[in-house]
């Protein structure tokens, strides 16, 4: 009995010495999807005399399955307020929390107020805020996000850090990916897939095999310049911590305001789920506000020959003042004013400032001024001959440079206006046009 026990101990020790396969315990730590769980079992035994030792070993392996999890959805940049008819763009970060790559879907819906419906919302998926790839995305389409989990971390050095992951578990993470670890985003600069552990014997075995040791995969991370901007400095036991890929959903919303007294509002709600379902996130709302545009126009007249007179007699000069006011918070675009020389009058034009008279109706004669409240420009009968403007205030002119009653007059107002098209009258801006006529 004593002898048997001694041999027993010898057998156990001999096992360590003889079986590198079982001693190196091939396998994979962590719970990332596609990690290989390798079990190697060895039997060591003696014959009846207790002298000849034999050994057999075998193995079985199981891969870790994907464990789906809801995405984390966060609005990074809300829709900036926009003018009616223009496009505003927001950015939403979608972050994976699973242990492996999965296919998700992001869906969005609109709830509008004071907008012409339907509004136009187009989506794109960006792999980074800037510098990544951008692909068109429609609501509910497939969206793949990678993920894995940590085995251990190497010491951070020179602004980057290497994370060890189970071999074969990169799970869609590639250089350039943005990944999130414990709520902090990093940029992936390099990856390696590693080598999975193996053992040559499987099934029913009568001999030992040879083992392949696992070479862990790695993900090298650096600060995410468009996100957390934090240099990686992970430490401690992070085994099993999820490394989830982040992609950005960019939504471009274009809408026209249907009211001239209220801003238009598009409340966009975004929700996500795994493609297979069952991992829905609560809807995140992102509100786009479009400014209503309300431009008022007022025309007044005064008799400059007989000040204070309510009427006029032939030969009197009347001055018209046209006031264009943008009282809304949105910018009005392509603003042009159509006017005409009143009946029984002749437009006053000439070489001097407006009202100098003596004009005969040639292109370069001045007849009006336009002021934006800061700058004033003289306007000639031909739109192209108006005063040069370092700050563009406006242009104008008459049809065929005529000055007789009934001649149409056009003014093009605002920044960006030309001698053929109106420009932008910005929110809260007031423009004043002045011209004179002489009663025939």
């Amino acid at each position, binding site marked *: 009995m004593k002898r048997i026990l001694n041999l027993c101990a010898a057998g*156990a020790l001999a096992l360590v010495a003889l079986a590198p396969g079982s001693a190196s315990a091939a396998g994979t730590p962590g719970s990332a999807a596609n990690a290989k769980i390798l079990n190697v079992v060895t039997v060591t035994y003696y*014959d009846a005399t207790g002298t000849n030792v034999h050994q057999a070993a075998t193995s079985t392996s*199981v891969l870790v399955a994907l464990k789906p999890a809801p995405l984390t959805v966060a609005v990074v940049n809300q829709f900036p307020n926009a003018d009616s008819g223009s496009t505003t763009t927001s950015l939403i970060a979608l972050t994976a929390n699973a242990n492996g790559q999965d296919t998700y879907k992001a869906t969005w819906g609109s709830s509008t107020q004071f907008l012409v419906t339907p509004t136009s919302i187009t989506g794109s998926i960006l792999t980074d805020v800037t510098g990544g790839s951008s692909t068109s995305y429609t609501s509910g389409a497939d969206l793949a996000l990678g993920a894995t989990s940590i085995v251990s971390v190497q010491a951070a050095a020179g602004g980057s850090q290497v994370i060890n992951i189970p071999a074969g578990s990169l799970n869609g993470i590639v250089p350039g990916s943005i990944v999130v670890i414990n709520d902090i985003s990093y940029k992936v600069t390099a990856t390696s897939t590693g080598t999975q552990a193996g053992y040559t014997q499987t099934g029913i075995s009568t001999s030992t095999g040879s083992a392949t040791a696992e070479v862990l995969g790695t993900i090298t991370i650096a600060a995410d310049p468009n996100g957390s901007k934090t240099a990686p400095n992970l430490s401690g036991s992070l085994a099993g911590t999820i490394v989830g890929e982040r992609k950005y959903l960019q939504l471009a919303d274009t809408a026209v305001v249907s009211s001239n007294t209220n801003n238009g509002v598009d409340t966009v709600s975004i929700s996500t789920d795994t493609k297979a379902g069952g991992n829905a996130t609560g809807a995140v709302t992102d509100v786009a506000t479009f400014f209503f545009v309300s431009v008022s126009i007022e025309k007044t007249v005064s008799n400059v020959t007989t000040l204070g007179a309510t009427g006029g007699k032939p030969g009197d000069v009347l001055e018209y003042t046209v006031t264009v006011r943008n009282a809304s918070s949105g910018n009005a675009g392509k603003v042009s004013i159509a006017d005409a020389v009143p009946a029984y009058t002749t437009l006053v034009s000439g070489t001097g400032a407006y009202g100098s008279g003596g004009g005969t109706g040639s292109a370069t004669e001045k007849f009006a001024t336009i002021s934006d409240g800061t700058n004033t420009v003289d306007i000639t009968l031909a739109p192209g001959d108006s005063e040069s403007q370092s700050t563009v205030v406006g242009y104008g002119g008459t049809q065929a440079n005529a000055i007789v009653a009934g001649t149409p007059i056009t003014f093009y107002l605002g920044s960006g206006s030309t001698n053929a098209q109106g420009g932008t009258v910005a929110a809260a801006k007031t423009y004043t046009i002045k011209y004179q006529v002489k009663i025939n």
Partner: protein
Amino acid sequence: MKKTVLGSTLLLAALLVPVAAFAKPQVTISVAAEKEVTVVNQGKKSVKLVPATKISPNEVIVYTVHYANKGDETATNAVIEDPIPKGTVYLADAHVSGTPEPEFSIDHGKSYNKATLLSYEVKLPSGKIERHQATSSDYTNIRWIIKEIPAGSSGNLKFRVKVK
């Protein structure tokens, strides 16, 4: 002791081929990985084992080690040794079956003991050394020692691990 180790190593090398001509034990070994699936049949729940090829974190793998002596002589002092697979934690529970009682290691197979006798030392900040009973999650290896496997006999050894 060291001499004994070397001796058996040399013996193995020297005798593996010549011994083939004589009566000898031949122990085969296999291992199966299965997972438990709860089946509801006519309102009755039962747990069924199905082969595991993919398994989710926190799920349980049931390993069944099957050994059989296909030789014509009794195998003696058989030691079946199995490192707890990386990425899993040993589960101590009543599902462990088969005789004999397994022994465990918490130092990657350097030493083994019965579950109730496994302990390790922790040095407290005060410098005092405290002895802790090892728990199943500390186990790194499991082994069974079977004194005799008669020719033609076989057996199963089961243990369960939880995927991290």
